[in-house]
């Protein structure tokens, strides 16, 4: 009988070289990022002071905070809605086999990549310059970010749609748009809705931070509280944000399970 094969394959020279290279990259990154255990240890008392001052949270401005929280969520919903609507045509144009030509497909993919690679905070800065301070700038930033996120997933969901119904629709004489409307979109819909709900979760988290660059929402309240060392109020804001994000995530997960089933 032959010997049992070893539990782990011995890596070859190339494997060793890749592992050593990856380790060197991580070590150099830690050095370059200024990671310092001493500075962390020295910062612990300051962190403890923040926590002591933050608790118990101060609910005196709760009505204002809740108002800002609602505005934040409204930004997230409106930005996601606009972004999802715009992502559908971009997704169709970017999907292999659905785009009317390679040039159009390339252009659509480039737009989606541009929307995705620039962080939402930077889009916030750009739209504050364009439309001024306030929630509209944040909504636009979230919409563009959603186009980048959903456009890619929508295109993938449409590319993976079953071919059989598409062939059947082509056989009955449907046009390209007819095939997309009747066969591709219904097949891709569960994936698209799941992506849209993830986008809403992402937008809810992002909308909190957008206030830091003046693009509206509860981030403005958080920044003012932190700047004034009003940590107890900041703690109230963080708890409100935590509850909102958690509620959106739970609702989104429940909806996804229901739709995919």
């Amino acid at each position: 009988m032959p010997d049992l094969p070893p539990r782990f394959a011995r890596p070859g020279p190339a494997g060793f070289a890749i592992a050593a290279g990856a380790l060197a990259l991580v070590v150099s990154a830690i050095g370059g990022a200024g990671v310092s255990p001493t500075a962390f240890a020295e910062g612990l008392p300051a962190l403890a002071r923040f926590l002591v001052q933050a608790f118990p949270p101060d609910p005196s401005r709760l009505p204002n905070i809740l108002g800002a929280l609602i505005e934040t969520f409204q930004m997230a919903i409106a930005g996601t809605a606009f972004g999802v609507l715009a992502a559908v045509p971009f997704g169709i144009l970017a999907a292999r086999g659905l785009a009317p030509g390679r040039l159009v497909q390339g252009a659509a993919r480039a737009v989606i990549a541009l929307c995705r690679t620039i962080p939402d905070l930077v889009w916030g800065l750009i739209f504050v310059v364009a439309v001024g301070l306030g929630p509209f700038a944040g909504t636009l930033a979230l919409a563009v970010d959603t186009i980048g996120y959903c456009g890619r997933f929508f295109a993938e969901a449409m590319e993976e749609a079953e071919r059989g119904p598409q062939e059947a629709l082509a056989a009955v004489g449907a046009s390209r748009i007819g095939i997309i409307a009747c066969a591709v979109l219904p097949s891709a819909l569960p994936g698209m809705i799941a992506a849209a709900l993830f986008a809403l979760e992402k937008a809810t988290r992002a909308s909190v931070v957008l206030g830091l660059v003046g693009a509206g929402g509860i981030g403005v309240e958080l920044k003012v509280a932190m700047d004034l060392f009003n940590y107890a109020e900041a703690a109230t804001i963080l708890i409100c944000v935590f509850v909102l994000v958690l509620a959106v995530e739970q609702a989104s997960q429940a909806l996804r399970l229901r739709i995919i089933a």
Partner: protein
Amino acid sequence: MTAAALAAERRAAAASAPPIAVEVQELRKRFPGGQPVLDGVSFAVRQGQSVALIGANGAGKSTLLRCLVRLIEPDDGAVLLFGRPLRPLGPRALRRLRSTVGMVFQRHNLVPRLSVLTNVVHGAIGRSGPGAWAQALAPRAVRAEALACLDRVGLADLADRRADTLSGGQSQRVAIARALMQRPRLLLADEPAASLDPAAGSEVMTLFERLAREDGITLIFTTHAMAHALAHAERVLGLRAGRIALDEPARPALAAQLERFFA
């Protein structure tokens, strides 16, 4: 009988015979990097005739069926449907022509998340356009016609059901109703019973034959089941090595020859 009398009789028979519905001339198709799948296929089918197309796996039956409506573009040769050559047709004219040719697939190819009625309404897309994208958008007459087509296949009571909740046999009957919704003159079926159990397969084939006969539809179906070929077709065409190697009327005596053909 003299030669002249024989020729006169043949001319008279040809004059009284139904016109040609499908004419295939020297059709050739080779997929990149492979052997020719179709290597000079020629045959003609008269209107109202039902034809079984048989052959081993990979013989080119499905490819041939798809070439008949240019779902696959042939490399060479010609296809004429009701005397009209397909090759010169532009996209719009091709769609119009396809809308009159019903096609039923082995995997049924219904849109799974949509209702049974919407899937049948899709059969009217060629003539009704976006009005037939969904039963909710369709005019009352289109919806009523779709329900009548479902009734003909015995599934009118399942109109509201989602297509992905149907059994295999039901699903294939809905696909047949969708094809009927096209008001077809020609029905092409690619191994319509292959994914079904024997009883459901037999039911589906009987339904095909009955509907085609009732409406005077020309029927071409591919099959591996000799029993289906002999029971439900008037004529059997056999494909081998990309060519028509058998062309016989379907009769019980053909069974032995078909056994040899598949051997």
